[in-house]
């Protein structure tokens, strides 16, 4: 139901209530963006920008500023079209590593993405790199069964780096197209766990020099400003190549990704809209921006 142009429709409400572009108008815009978790700093910069722009272009009528707002927001999210897609190797193994804090949706997103690739007739393998959390391996195995792909695992409590080594060997010998690697959730301020993650990544790189080809940071749309800190630390540790923004099927807007794109230039590649197999979608900036303004 959300069309590419519906953002403009949603903006109409804001514009309708304000005929002129005045302080009240900007205050309401500020509140809308803050309530979408965009973050105070980014919002204020944006509003200052818009005020400047309004002055420069001599915009007084509220409906004339509407395209400028969409322009600015979309600009933030779409620096270039290219990189917002997953980079998948042709006729070669592609390794994708999933990282993120606890409970954001890493394992579920792996299940969904495996399903997507399976439908494209790709040969997929999963690596059960979360050896810590109770039931984590079994959870990935259930997804493997659902989708119809194998899972490489070791016992609970074993070294995740060793699991990755096994998995990449298997992926090579089985001539797999895509290897999706799960990792345990970890808060970014846990130094030893972040070190462990770096080690996991190094194991993959050692076996295939340009692997992992994607490092996807999974962010929960319900998360507020802490997502910025997550992005910073995980990027530093693992060179994140993209974001999976999950749980957008709720009422949270996930606006913090605007700030993340702005400050760290990490693109959102996929979004999660539910717990089912088919609930993973490619990110579309226009739709997302529309979502920021809808109830």
């Amino acid at each position, binding site marked *: 139901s959300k069309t590419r142009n519906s953002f403009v429709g949603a903006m109409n409400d804001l514009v309708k209530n304000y005929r002129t572009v005045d302080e009240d108008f900007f205050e309401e815009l500020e*509140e809308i963006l*803050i*309530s*979408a*978790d965009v*973050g*105070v*700093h980014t919002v204020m910069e944006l509003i200052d920008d818009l005020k400047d722009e309004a002055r420069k272009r001599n915009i007084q009528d509220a409906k004339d500023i509407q395209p400028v707002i969409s322009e600015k927001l979309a600009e933030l999210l779409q620096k270039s079209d290219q990189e917002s897609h997953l980079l998948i190797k042709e006729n070669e193994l592609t390794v994708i590593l999933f990282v993120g*804090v*606890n*409970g*954001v*949706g890493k394992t579920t997103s792996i*299940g969904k993405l495996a399903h997507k690739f399976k439908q494209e007739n790709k040969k997929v393998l999963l690596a059960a790199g979360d050896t*810590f*959390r*109770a*039931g*984590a391996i*079994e*959870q990935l*195995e*259930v*997804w493997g069964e*659902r989708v119809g792909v194998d899972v490489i695992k070791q016992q*609970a409590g074993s070294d995740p780096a060793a699991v990755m080594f096994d998995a990449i060997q298997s992926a090579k010998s089985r001539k797999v197209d895509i290897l999706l690697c799960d990792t345990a959730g970890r*808060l*970014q*301020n*846990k130094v030893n766990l972040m070190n462990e993650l770096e080690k996991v990544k190094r194991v993959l790189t050692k076996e295939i020099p340009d692997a992992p080809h994607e490092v996807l940071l999974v962010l*929960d749309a*319900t*998360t*507020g*400003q*802490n*997502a*910025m*800190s997550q992005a910073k630390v995980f990027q530093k540790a693992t060179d994140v190549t993209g974001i999976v923004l999950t*749980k957008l*099927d*709720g*009422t*949270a*807007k996930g606006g*913090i990704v605007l700030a993340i794109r702005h400050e760290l230039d990490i693109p959102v590649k996929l979004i999660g809209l539910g*717990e089912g197999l088919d609930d993973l979608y490619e990110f579309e900036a226009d739709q997302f921006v529309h979502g920021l303004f809808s109830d």
Partner: protein
Amino acid sequence: MAFEGLAERLQGSIKKMRGKGKVAEQDVKEMMREVRLALLEADVNFKVVKKFVSDVKERAVGQDILDSLTPGQQVIKIVNEELTKLMGGEQSKIATAQKPPTVVMMVGLQGAGKTTTTGKLALHLRKKHNRSPLMVAADIYRPAAIKQLETLGKQLDMPVFSLGDQVSPVEIAKQAIAKAKEEHHDYVIIDTAGRLHVDENLMGELDEIKEVVSPDEILLVVDAMTGQDAVNVAQNFNERLGITGVVLTKLDGDTRGGAAISVKAVTNTPIKFAGMGEKSDALEPFHPERMASRILGMGDVLSLIEKA
């Protein structure tokens, strides 16, 4: 720039107010602008912030300055007190039913920490209160949710009641209570599936479970990293179920945790526990005062006041 402590930000205003006898409106206004930013950056809901700022302004303006404080310190003291008050007193107690078993329902969004907290709470009840809890696996949806609770049960040597994932959660809950009575468990902790507050069907299921087990305690489990949406979540769960308390999880992270204020403001139920790690012993009482300083990033400010 972001998450700069409130102390540094207020330095200017504090200096300006030095030597004044009464707190003047203009000074308070200036300081409250900074307080507002700090609260928003800490993820306190913007509506809650609005009300808070105006309440504090009212209380602060025109006050005589206490001998021991500068006007700036006094405003900060008021901010801190009000914030602490907003989060309620210390209350890490869990209800006890007149007639056992006491029934506790764990509810919340997906991934908030319900299952982990179920294990933590069971351990807490056994260790600190010498109770004998029964944990109930009522999440039949999430892949391996039952296995997760069973694994925790094994780790803790704590019984888990499960009927697999082909029996409705309502039926599981009902039978669990019977089982608890039979085996003389004095607490029953029901781990429910994560669900969105706007999911009509699944929220209805919680209603039904509540109907059948008449819980003494319905704990909303909230991720401390939650942003502005915390108010919607808390409001919906509370209106629908009448929650009796909140558990704030993942406070071992570096989040400011403003969701604590939002949730408290809309539900007016106590935050009973703080989750401080993934392990089963990482459950602590919730300290409103510490939380207030954490949200404002002003441990340093408080020590400044204390020294004065």
